[in-house]
């Protein structure tokens, strides 16, 4: 999978200064870096570590611990399937199975052509609409296995 990015030193510096170089804000800093590049490039982590005077091993540890972070480039469209208990009870598992089957990837992975990244999330707070699939922030409720293919096709 290509599309790896070379982060700009200035950009990283400006992100660090947003938090006054406070090492306690590492998680927030990494979120801003990921918002910028759609994933966490290796060089960015090195620069963050150097800028905060935090060992790279700790930055990497934090980046690999939290689900919000991706160390690999992500797809153009982010699919989030809600697996909250209410959605589960209404059949979210089947919806996820169908998406996995249709795209030939598992949750947490990105399609070869970098079109989709599939994630699961626990409760988006729209339980009345369950099962829910959120794509690029757009909610599709009362999903069934049968509605998966047309939904996916609407995203290039």
């Amino acid at each position, binding site marked *: 999978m290509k599309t790896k990015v070379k982060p700009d030193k200035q950009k990283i510096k400006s992100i660090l200064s947003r938090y006054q170089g406070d090492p306690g804000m590492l998680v927030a800093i990494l979120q801003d870096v990921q918002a910028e590049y759609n994933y966490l490039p290796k060089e960015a982590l090195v620069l963050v570590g150097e800028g905060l005077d935090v060992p790279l091993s700790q930055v*990497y540890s934090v980046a690999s611990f939290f689900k919000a972070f991706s160390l690999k480039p992500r797809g153009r469209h982010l699919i989030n399937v809600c697996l909250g208990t209410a959605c589960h009870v209404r059949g979210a598992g089947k919806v996820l199975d169908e998406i996995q089957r249709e795209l030939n990837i598992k949750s947490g992975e990105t399609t070869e052509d970098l079109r989709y990244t599939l994630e699961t999330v626990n409760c988006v707070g729209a339980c009345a609409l369950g099962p829910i699939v959120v794509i690029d922030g757009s909610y599709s409720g009362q999903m069934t296995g049968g509605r998966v293919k047309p939904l996916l096709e609407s995203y290039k």
Partner: protein
Amino acid sequence: MVTLTIDGRKLKAEEGQTILQVAQENNIYIPALCHNEAVKPYGACRLCLVEITRRGRTKLVASCLYEVEDGLEVKTGSDRVVNNRKMLMELLLARCPNNKEVQVLARKLGVEETSFQQDDEQCILCALCVRVCQEVVGVSAISLVNRGVNRQMATPYYEPSTACIGCGACAYICPVGAIKFEDVGDTRYIKWPSSQMEFKLKKCKTCGSYWMPERQLEYIIEKTGLPPETFDNCPDCRD
């Protein structure tokens, strides 16, 4: 000074000591796999759990972390403690069935076999290696990465770490021999469960033996400010 009771024995201890420290001083055995005096206690293996009774309430606590109090009653071998220990050992044995030290400990705790599907890990995730690298050596070359069942000890990106100085403290402190280090000729090989590194060893100007990784010497020179020539000779050849 405080007075506490461990397994019916009245013992004196200093404030600030942990139950484990007091037990060890008095030759009372409590298994403690993730514990080492060189680093701060971590409380991850849970094998050191003992039963305490305090103000009429009984609970299990990690003896490596719990500080002694006056009047504390401790039981290191009650049924509850032993049952927990055995199940923990079964879980550990299922994770590392082919590790010699784990097998020895299991037998010592009376666990012959495990009820679970067997994996084949060597690392017990006690984090002693990570802790010694951070707290004692001070370079934090390795860390625990990922979360939960995917947790591993690794170098960043599983690649050779620029911070590692090849000192081998991690291998030395590992209680189950999961980290291998070997000096062969002019090279030191360090092999962690998920990655490995090689280090060029410094050659003694006098006797010609290879004695310490050059990287480690660079680190010492940087930290102490001593002139590099100090380390031209190995310790045996130095005056």
